[in-house]
C-alpha cells in the first residue's frame, strides 16, 4: 500500500521529466529481480571477457594446428578445438568481446544518426518533416538483411569498420521514427517556445533543451536495439557476411555447425556460442524492458 502511494506522488511530479529520471531508471532495475540478475550477469560477463581476452593471444588462437583438429573438450582445450585445430574457448571469449563491441558500436552509430534525424524532423515539422519522413519510409521498405549482405559483398577493402557502417546505415530508422513522434509532442511545450523567444538558436534548442527531456526514451530504445543488433550481427557472421573468419565472433563459431559432422557430433564447437548469443540477447532485453517499464509510470512494478 505504501509503495503505491509513492508511485502516485511520482506520477504527479512526472519523474521522466525531473532530473532524478536516471535515478528512477536505476531503482526500477533494482526492484525487478530478473533485470537485476541480467545486469549483474552482463557486468560480470563483460569484465571477465575483456580481462581474459587481454591475457589471450589472438594470433595464437586463430593459428591453424593440424595436429589438434576437432578435439573434444579436454584439460588443454576447455571447449575442444575446431576443424582447424583452433581453441574454441579462446575463440568464444574473443568472439563474445567482438560481438559485444560491434553491437555497441552499431547501436551507437545508428542511434546517434537516428536520434538526430528524428529530433530535426520532429522539431521543425512541416515540409522538413515531410521530406525527411519520405526518406525514412523508403529506407524502411528496403529488404534490410539482403542489402547489407550485398553491400558487404561488393565493398572494396572490406573491414570491420565498413561492416559497422553498412549495418548502421540500414538500421537507424526505427529509433528515428520513435524519437520524431516524441519530438513532435515535445516541441509544443512552452519551454521550447520560450527558448525560441529568448534568442536561442535552433541547434541549441534541439540538442540542449529538447534532447535531455527525451533522454530516457533514447536510453530505453538504444538498449533494446543493442539486443537486436547482437542477434543480427551474429546472423550475418553466421552466413559469412559479418566478421572475416580470421576475427573470431560468435556467429562465425556458430557457422561451423553448417558442417553436418560438426553439427551432429561436435556440439562443443557451436553450442557454447549459441547459448552465449541467446543469453546475451535475453539479458540486454531484460534490462531494456525494465527500463521501459520505469519510463512508463503506468507499467511500473513499484
Amino acid at each position, binding site marked *: 500500500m505504501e509503495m503505491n502511494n509513492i508511485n502516485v506522488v511520482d506520477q504527479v511530479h512526472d519523474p521522466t521529466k525531473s532530473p532524478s529520471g536516471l535515478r528512477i531508471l536505476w531503482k526500477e532495475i533494482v526492484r525487478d529481480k530478473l533485470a537485476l540478475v541480467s545486469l549483474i550477469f552482463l557486468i560480470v560477463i563483460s569484465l571477465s571477457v575483456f580481462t581474459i581476452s587481454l591475457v589471450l593471444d589472438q594470433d595464437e588462437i586463430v593459428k591453424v594446428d593440424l595436429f589438434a583438429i576437432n578435439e573434444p573438450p579436454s584439460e588443454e582445450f576447455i571447449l575442444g578445438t575446431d576443424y582447424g585445430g583452433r581453441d574454441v574457448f579462446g575463440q568464444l571469449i574473443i568472439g563474445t568481446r567482438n560481438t559485444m563491441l560491434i553491437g555497441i558500436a552499431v547501436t551507437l552509430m545508428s542511434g546517434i544518426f537516428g536520434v538526430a534525424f528524428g529530433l530535426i524532423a520532429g522539431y521543425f515539422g512541416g515540409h522538413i518533416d515531410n521530406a525527411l519522413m519520405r526518406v525514412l519510409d523508403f529506407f524502411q521498405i528496403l529488404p534490410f538483411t539482403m542489402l547489407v549482405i550485398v553491400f558487404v559483398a561488393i565493398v572494396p577493402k572490406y573491414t570491420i569498420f565498413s561492416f559497422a557502417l553498412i549495418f548502421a546505415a540500414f538500421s537507424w530508422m526505427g529509433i528515428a521514427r520513435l524519437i520524431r513522434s516524441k519530438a513532435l509532442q515535445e516541441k509544443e511545450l512552452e519551454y521550447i*517556445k*520560450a*527558448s525560441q*523567444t*529568448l*534568442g536561442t538558436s535552433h541547434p541549441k534548442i534541439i540538442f540542449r533543451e529538447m534532447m*535531455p527531456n527525451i533522454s530516457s526514451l533514447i536510453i530505453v530504445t538504444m538498449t533494446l536495439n543493442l539486443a537486436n543488433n547482437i542477434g543480427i550481427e551474429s546472423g550475418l557472421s553466421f552466413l559469412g557476411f559479418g566478421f572475416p573468419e580470421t576475427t573470431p565472433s560468435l556467429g562465425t563459431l556458430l557457422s561451423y555447425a553448417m558442417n553436418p559432422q560438426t553439427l551432429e557430433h561436435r556440439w562443443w564447437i557451436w553450442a557454447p556460442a549459441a547459448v552465449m548469443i541467446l543469453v546475451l540477447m535475453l539479458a540486454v532485453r531484460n534490462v531494456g524492458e525494465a527500463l521501459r517499464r520505469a519510463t512508463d509510470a503506468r507499467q511500473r512494478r513499484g
Partner: protein
Amino acid sequence: MAILEVTNLKVYFPIKAGIFNRTVDYVRAVDGVSFVLEEGKTYGLVGESGSGKTTTGRAIIGLEKVTEGKIVFQGKDITKKRARTRELNRNMQMIFQDPYSSLNPKKRVLDIVAEPLRNYEHLSKKQEKMRVQELLELVGLSPESILKYPHEFSGGQRQRIGIARAIALKPKLIIADEPVSALDVSVQAQVLNFMKDIQKELGLTYLFISHDLGIVKHMCDEIAIMYKGRHVEQGTKEDIFERPQHIYTKRLVAAIPEINPRHREKQFQFRKEVEKEYDAAYDDYFNKDGLAYQLQKISDTHLVALPEKG
C-alpha cells in the same frame, strides 16, 4: 509614443484534406486585428478561449507565421521573420501561461534565467551568476536557489522564475499570455502586483492577454475585446467598463462576479436583462457568419464593431 503598431493582422491555419493533402480551407484564428500600444502602458487583450488572443500575442513575438497585415515594433516593420533583428527580438519578451511546462525541467534555475543572457551578453561565469542572483532577488526569490530545479518550486514561484527570465535582458515590451491563470487565486494577486511594480521600475510596456475581466480591470490602461479572431470593442478601461457599447462586451462585463452580497440580487437581475438583450439583439451585432463587424469610432479612444449605418 507608440512602441507597437499592429495593422490588420491575420493569422490563418490551413485545413488539409483529400488525397493529396491539399489545403481546402482555413481556420481564421486572427482575422484582421489592429491596435496600438503606447510605451509604458498596459494593453489588455480579452476573449474566451479560441478567440485568437493567444495567437495574436504569438504572432507578434514571431512564434506564429503572419498570413497578412503589418506589425511595427519600435518603428521597424517586423512582419517578416527575416526583418527581426537580434536587437529587436531582445527588446520583446514573453511570459508564458503554464509555469509548469514553460521551464525546462532538466535545467537548474541558474541555467534557465541565464539563457537569454548567454544569447545576448557575453558575461563571465561570475558576472552571470551575480546577474541571475540579482534578478531572482528582484522577483522575490532567494538568491540561494539558483542551483535548484524547477520541480522544487511552487507554481507561483515558478512563474516568478519565468518573469525573471523575461526581464533579464531589460526588454521594452513584454507579452504576458495569461500569466496567472494557472495559479491559485491566492497567489494571483501577489504575482500581478509584482508585475505592476517591476513595470514602474523598468518602464515596461505590457501586452496583457487574459480571459478574466476582473484581472484586466486591475492591470490594464487600454483594453480590446476579442471574439472569433476579431475585435468587437476597444477603448480605455473606463470606456469598456463604464460605457460598454457592444452586446458581447456588455455580457462579459455583466458576468464579473459581484463581491458585495447586498448587490447580489441586483446583479443577478442585471445579468438576466443583459442575457435577454443579447439573445434579442444578436443579429444586430454580428454578421451572418456570426462574426463581428468592422470597428467604428464612437469617441477618440473608443471603437466598437457595429454594422455600417445606412
